[in-house]
């Protein structure tokens, strides 16, 4: 056969395989408001950058008449390409082929691209859209999941791993996204759960819709399983592109330095924080007032809003911000916010991303529910994550830093490299009201006019301790700075920390309080 005929044959084979489950199945996929696996990859990657592998892979299952069924590419698309010119590895499950079910060859394609991503030290992006295990392939399908989970774990902290849930992701399949760094979901399209509504109804008699059980919003607001919420697939891809652009491709790389752009003028750092420490403000305004271009990519925006985490650039380099949010629950640390912050701190530490911590918190949230939910062990995660982190750690105390919250939020005692405080900072064992009530209890109780004496004592305590100067006199903070000096000092601190090198004791791994 002449070459041009052979090329035609190849083209025809490609065309057939790339049709996936066929036109009817594609129509169904579209009717659900979803794009096909290949369309998704093309939308996510730079134009003409995608190269597909294993297009002609097919299963060889025999039981239950499977040998009579052809499943093009075995229901998953794998390949490599670029995002903003940076190489990435991708897989996308194809729901039009046997519901994107995971059989042995399907899993081998996924693990092949995972191995590739790890070996090449490039980010891995997995698009999940699958009905679950391919039941006909039995334990081979379970083996496939296990092989994926193992690789997710081994690659963790070496290359960024991103999961995109663009359809159902149910049962054991959810554990691959759960082991990855960032989970992206889209409203009305993403569905994640271990046991579905039907099983829950049969076994427990509880009735719930799929959306209320494991929809995008639930996982962003309630469970904390997802990190980024989008209204459409396109918005979701834009979010992924922006994130990939900021992240180093692996743990041996450092964030690249891009051109410096200052914050936008509309964020005036001097006018954001109210003087009264009991009044709220949006700490994201502070982040935007110091970050390059006022850009901030927030992670888990809708979950445990009392702490804000996310990425910005400072002086052209990626940094991770961790900030108490006085606007939500007064910025307290609690079970969920501790969990959220600790994981993010470890992410930044793993990928050489300097941490900038903005402190303004009244302490930990009191309550039986918090204590019984384990606020002790969850709160300990924050201490652990900050102590263990060896990336540059910069801390700015904006206002309140009371008690255990002061220690936990990247204090000098956990080896912060630079601790700055604004003149509005109050670094004390607790707020003036609480402290005065305890220290001057007798005087207040025995006074003829306890309320007046209490007020006077609160003022006395405020004057003495509600400031940054006691901590400054001990060297626990390095400098008291004007708010307008914040950006300049942070940029300088990052520059100074460029070659930071600390040696930790040799160990296999620590035992964080997960």
């Amino acid at each position: 056969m002449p070459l041009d005929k052979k090329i035609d044959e190849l083209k025809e084979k490609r065309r057939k395989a790339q049709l996936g489950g066929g036109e009817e199945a594609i129509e169904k996929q579209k009717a659900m408001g979803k794009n096909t696996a290949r369309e998704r990859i093309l939308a996510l990657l730079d134009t003409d950058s995608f190269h597909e592998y294993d297009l002609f892979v097919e299963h060889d299952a025999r039981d239950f008449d499977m040998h009579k069924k052809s499943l093009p590419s075995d229901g998953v698309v794998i390949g490599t390409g670029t995002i903003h010119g940076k190489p990435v590895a991708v897989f996308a499950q194809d729901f039009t082929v046997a519901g994107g079910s995971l059989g042995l060859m399907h899993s081998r394609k996924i693990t092949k691209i995972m191995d590739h991503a790890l070996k090449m030290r490039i980010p891995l992006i997995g698009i999940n859209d699958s009905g679950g295990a391919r039941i006909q392939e039995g334990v081979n399908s379970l083996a496939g999941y296990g092989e994926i989970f193992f690789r997710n774990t081994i690659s963790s902290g070496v290359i960024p791993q991103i999961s995109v849930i663009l359809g159902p992701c149910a049962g054991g399949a959810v554990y691959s996204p759960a082991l990855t760094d960032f989970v992206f979901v889209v409203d009305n399209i993403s569905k994640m759960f271990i046991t579905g509504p039907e099983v829950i109804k049969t076994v427990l008699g509880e009735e719930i819709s799929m959306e209320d059980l494991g929809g995008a919003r639930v996982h962003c607001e309630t469970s904390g399983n997802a990190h980024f919420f989008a209204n459409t697939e396109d918005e979701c891809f834009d979010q992924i592109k922006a994130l990939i652009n900021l992240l180093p491709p692996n743990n041996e790389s450092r964030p690249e330095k891009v051109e410096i752009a200052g914050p936008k003028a509309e964020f005036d750092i001097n006018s954001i924080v109210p003087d009264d420490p009991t009044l709220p403000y949006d700490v994201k305004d502070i982040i935007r007032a110091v970050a390059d271009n006022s850009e901030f990519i927030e992670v888990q925006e809708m979950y445990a809003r009392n702490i804000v985490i996310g990425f910005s650039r400072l002086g052209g380099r990626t940094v991770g911000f961790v900030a108490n949010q006085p606007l939500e629950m007064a910025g307290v640390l609690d079970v969920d916010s501790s969990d959220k912050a600790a994981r993010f701190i470890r992410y930044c530490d793993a990928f050489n991303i300097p941490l900038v911590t903005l402190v303004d918190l009244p302490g930990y949230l009191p309550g039986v529910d918090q204590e019984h939910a384990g606020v002790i062990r969850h709160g300990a995660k924050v201490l652990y994550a900050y102590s263990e982190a060896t990336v540059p750690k910069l801390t700015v105390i904006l206002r309140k830093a009371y008690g255990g919250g002061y220690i936990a939020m990247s204090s000098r005692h956990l080896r912060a490299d630079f601790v700055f405080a604004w003149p509005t900072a109050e670094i004390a064992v607790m707020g003036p009201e609480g402290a005065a009530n305890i220290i001057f209890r007798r005087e207040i109780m025995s006074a003829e006019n306890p309320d007046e004496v209490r007020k006077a004592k609160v003022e006395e305590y405020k004057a003495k301790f509600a400031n940054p100067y006691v901590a400054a006199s001990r060297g626990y903070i390095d400098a008291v700075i004007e708010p307008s000096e914040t950006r300049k000092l942070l940029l300088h601190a990052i520059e100074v920390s460029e070659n930071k090198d600390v040696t930790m004791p040799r160990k296999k791994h620590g035992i964080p309080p997960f």
Partner: protein
Amino acid sequence: MEKQKDLGKLNINYTEYTTRLSKKFTSRKPFKHETPGHVSSFIPGTVVELLVKEGDSVRYGQELLVLDAMKMKNRILSLWDGTVESIPVKPGDKLPKGAVLMVIKVG
């Protein structure tokens, strides 16, 4: 500043803070002590069989009923010596977690 109307008050260490309150916080359930004599389901399930009837005297550790949950037939034991005062459930009832299965008059 954000809209003032969605702001509430949160008291931490005798200081009242003006802030938004989370749904989780405002909908938290107040802590309740267990009522002595109330036998309740520790897991959602279906009542299979009652092993005692109203008026029976029961001993600590005696089997009271069988609750089918997660493919297991759980034998629910009495935590008290006493008399069965009432049985608000019957075989076949599907129950949520924490439902009262039986009330025992302790002593």
